[in-house]
């Protein structure tokens, strides 16, 4: 055993192996985190290319470029790639990199399972992508896979089910790893209520994943047997119920929504205090609010399906439960504002993304509150108002959270400072065009444009054009992120160990870049 201090930077006695083995046989949490992040970034571009097709087709009324069937494949695949390939792996990548550094652990608790949970993903997504070339095309029933429509999928059907299973297995293994690491490998003295907020939100997210993903696995397995084994889970003709699938799916699906946003809450709760040079306001309230949101996420699923026909009591219960979520979410927003209040703020790129997150996620929260009101939802449901709502919480919500995290920790990962000027340009391009893209969609939905249609009545033309132009520029500006990251990794001004003036937490006690093996001796916590 060495007795080196935790921040000692002479760990090159056993650095990474050279060549492909470093990545294929990877067990180091930093390498695996990097692979997750690179994978997620590439999936963002694949899913983004599909969004381009959708927005190009919707630029004008009339059939423009693609057949309506292919259009449905694009909307379906866009969602699957963005949710399961982009947002979720990006957060797992951040967890891999940062949780051991934040709790003072040498690595994740189960490094080989960590390797496996990553390496499942490229296979799952290659398989899913290959369905585009199959007879009958890719899945086209929406990412929600509602039967009976999904049962009309061609040869892609079993591949869809298997790839969803693989994504679920990967997520569950990733979550087990997070929970075991946090529960067992915290540095001595780091009680649960001393953990950084990012670690806290990930701990709760991991429990959500473990509870929700098996439910999805069950639902898609029932689809599989309905299709191939003559069961009738979702077939009314055999005594089943197509709506039962929706109940099961959304029992997974609503926690899934929080799986994609809670870690972003954590990131923002790290970034704002750093750049406000002031401690997070109401730390324990933040933790309890996160836990409350997680609990409520399991009892609100039917608000995704108010139109399926449910008893009055059901409608009322799910409306009131959904409205309740506004309370802990409000607490979080108020706490972020209170953290900024009378701080001493500077606005480097991570802070810009975090502040934009608070503004724009809150707009998504308002439309969410409106959608909770059942009578009004019967008008909003399945229109572009919903599309606008969930893109507001997912793009300037989850994705801006990821961007903030990348800019915030990139100097720690690479040892170099990124180009601040380019980062700010990336921010302003993203923040402006995300609104140009998605804000007009609120109007389209209210005026009556249903979602998932490949062509529309001519009165919807103008806002669709604006939205398409915004989407084109938003997507294109993300190339800048790739350039900034590559430039930063290749060199640049050296980062100090603290990087930011107001940084706080164990990860900033390590040198930049963080050594390949860190915290081999646990740090001591006051």
């Amino acid at each position, binding site marked *: 055993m060495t007795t080196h201090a935790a921040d000692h930077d002479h760990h090159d006695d056993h650095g990474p192996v050279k060549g492909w083995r470093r990545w294929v046989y990877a067990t180091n949490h930093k390498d695996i985190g990097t692979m997750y992040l690179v994978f997620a970034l590439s999936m963002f571009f694949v899913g983004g290319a599909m969004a381009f097709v959708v927005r190009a087709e919707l630029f004008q009324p009339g059939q423009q470029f693609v057949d309506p069937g292919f259009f449905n494949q694009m909307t379906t695949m866009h969602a699957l790639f963005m949710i399961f390939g982009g947002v979720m792996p990006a957060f797992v990548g951040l967890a891999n990199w940062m949780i051991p550094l934040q709790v003072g652990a040498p690595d994740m608790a189960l490094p080989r399972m960590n390797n496996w949970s990553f390496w499942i993903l490229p296979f799952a997504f290659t398989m899913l992508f290959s369905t585009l070339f199959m007879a009958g095309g890719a899945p086209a029933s929406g990412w929600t896979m*509602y039967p009976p429509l999904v049962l009309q999928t061609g040869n892609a059907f079993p591949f869809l089910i298997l790839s969803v299973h693989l994504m679920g297995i990967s997520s569950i293994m990733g979550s087990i790893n997070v929970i075991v690491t946090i529960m067992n490998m915290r540095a001595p003295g780091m009680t649960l209520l001393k953990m950084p907020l990012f670690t806290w939100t990930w701990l709760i997210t991991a429990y959500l994943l473990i509870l929700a993903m098996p439910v999805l696995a069950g639902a898609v397995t029932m689809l599989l047997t309905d299709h191939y084994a003559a069961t009738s889970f979702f077939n009314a003709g055999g005594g089943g119920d197509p709506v039962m699938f929706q109940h099961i799916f959304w029992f997974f699906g609503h926690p899934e929504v929080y799986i994609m946003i809670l870690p972003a809450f954590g990131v923002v709760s790290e970034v704002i205090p750093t750049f406000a*040079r002031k401690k997070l306001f109401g730390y324990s309230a933040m933790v309890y609010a996160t836990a409350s949101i997680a609990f409520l996420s399991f009892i609100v699923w039917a608000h995704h399906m108010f*139109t*399926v026909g449910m008893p009055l009591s059901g409608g009322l219960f799910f409306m009131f439960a959904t409205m309740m979520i506004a309370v802990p979410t409000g607490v979080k927003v108020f706490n972020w504002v209170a953290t900024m209040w009378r701080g*001493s703020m500077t606005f480097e790129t991570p802070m810009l993304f975090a502040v934009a997150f608070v503004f724009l996620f809150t707009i998504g929260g308002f439309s969410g509150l409106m959608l909770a009101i059942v*009578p009004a939802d019967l008008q909003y449901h399945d229109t572009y108002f919903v599309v606008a709502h969930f893109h507001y919480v997912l793009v300037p919500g989850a994705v801006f959270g990821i961007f903030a995290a990348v800019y915030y920790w990139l100097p720690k990962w690479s040892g170099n400072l990124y180009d601040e000027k380019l980062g700010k340009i990336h921010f302003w391009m993203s923040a402006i065009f995300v609104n140009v893209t998605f804000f007009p969609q609120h109007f389209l939905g209210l005026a009556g444009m249903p979602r998932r249609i490949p062509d529309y*009545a001519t009165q919807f*033309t103008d806002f669709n054009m604006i939205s398409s132009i915004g989407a084109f520029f938003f997507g294109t500006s993300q190339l800048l992120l790739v350039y900034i990251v590559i430039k930063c990794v290749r060199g640049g001004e050296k980062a100090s160990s603290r990087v930011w003036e107001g940084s706080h937490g164990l990860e900033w006690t390590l040198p930049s870049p963080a050594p390949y093996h860190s915290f081999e001796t646990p740090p001591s916590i006051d």
Partner: protein
Amino acid sequence: MKTTLVGRLVQRTVGLMVAGISLPALAAWELNFQESVTDVGQEIYDLHMLIFWICVGIAVVVFGAMIYSIIKHRKSVHPDPATFTHSTLAEIGWTTIPIIILVVMAFPAAKVLVKLEDNSKADLTVEVTGHQWNWHYKYPEDNVQFFSKLDEASNIARRGINNIDVNTVANYLLNVDRPMVVPVNKKVVIKLTANDVIHAWWVPKLGGKRDAVPGFINTLWFKANKIGTYRGQCSELCGRGHGFMPIVVEVVSDADYAKWVISQQDGLTSVSTASPIPGATGSVAASTPVMTQEKVVTTAGSMVDEVAVMAPAMDKAQLMKRGEEVYQVNCMACHQASGAGLPPAFPALTGSEVATGPAEGHIDNILNGRPGTAMVAFGRTLSDEDIAAVVTYVRNALGNSVGDVVMPADVAALRGE
């Protein structure tokens, strides 16, 4: 492919800029709900606006505080950060105030919901069934039923046939061949179901939508207080034709409704006779022999008497011409213009066993569909002439050359079995 995707986009963008001056002419710029024509719809609108303004109020406070803080508490003007980390009073405040606001919102919401769910005391009940991709309406009390599908003008324009500019098509994608007709100021209860996959029935001006679930019956109701034509469309993804199954409801006076019912009952025996194809096909209506007398309700709602022409048979040229039109409207979306299909979900017709085998089997396939596949039954949506024409067309075009001719009488004979 003639031009690349990017090329076409550039072309269209430039075209748009050139046409920029005329944009306001097409511009709707609708920002909010369509004006409702039901009392409950108005209440939903009021509820929606109430919540909207509450959200705006909260936004002004929260965003105002943030913007103030961003301006006043930046390092350049406020170099020494405060050190407070919590405030019990503030935290209790911003937990309880939102709860109070939510309760204020919940009461009117629950009230409207209770009203919405009251399906009792129907003046008129209509059974509505969603199909891929049209709607079937049945008035059990009046013994009227019919299919309603996208009108031909939209259907031709949407596929870019003849390069028709969709902006010149009236009510593009929101018009049907036969609208649903209901009397004004009457409580219309809709019993909603679906034949194949889940659809959703929605006319924004008549209030909220409901899903049409195969095997289950959902109920919704509306009571329109204004005579007029109201348009909507399917709003649950139901496959490739999802965007192309609109809903048109004509709200008419009691007297007009009574007249409409009588006219429909007259034509009930020929309810399966499809309406003629207007638009690009021009005079098909006049040139196609109509076997039975039929009254067609035009989309404007006026009654048009078709001239009854008794024609025992059609010649092959007529059948092929008509068949091509029927094919484009009903079959091409899945089986493709070339007949190659999109296997395996949508098999090829060119050289297929069905299309080159005995004619009876071919007719049966179209009349009754193929259970367990995406091939739906057209027996109730297409007339004998249309089925005869399209069978003849498929057997002698799209790369097939069986050589036989199927007459409407052949279809009628099989229909009887």
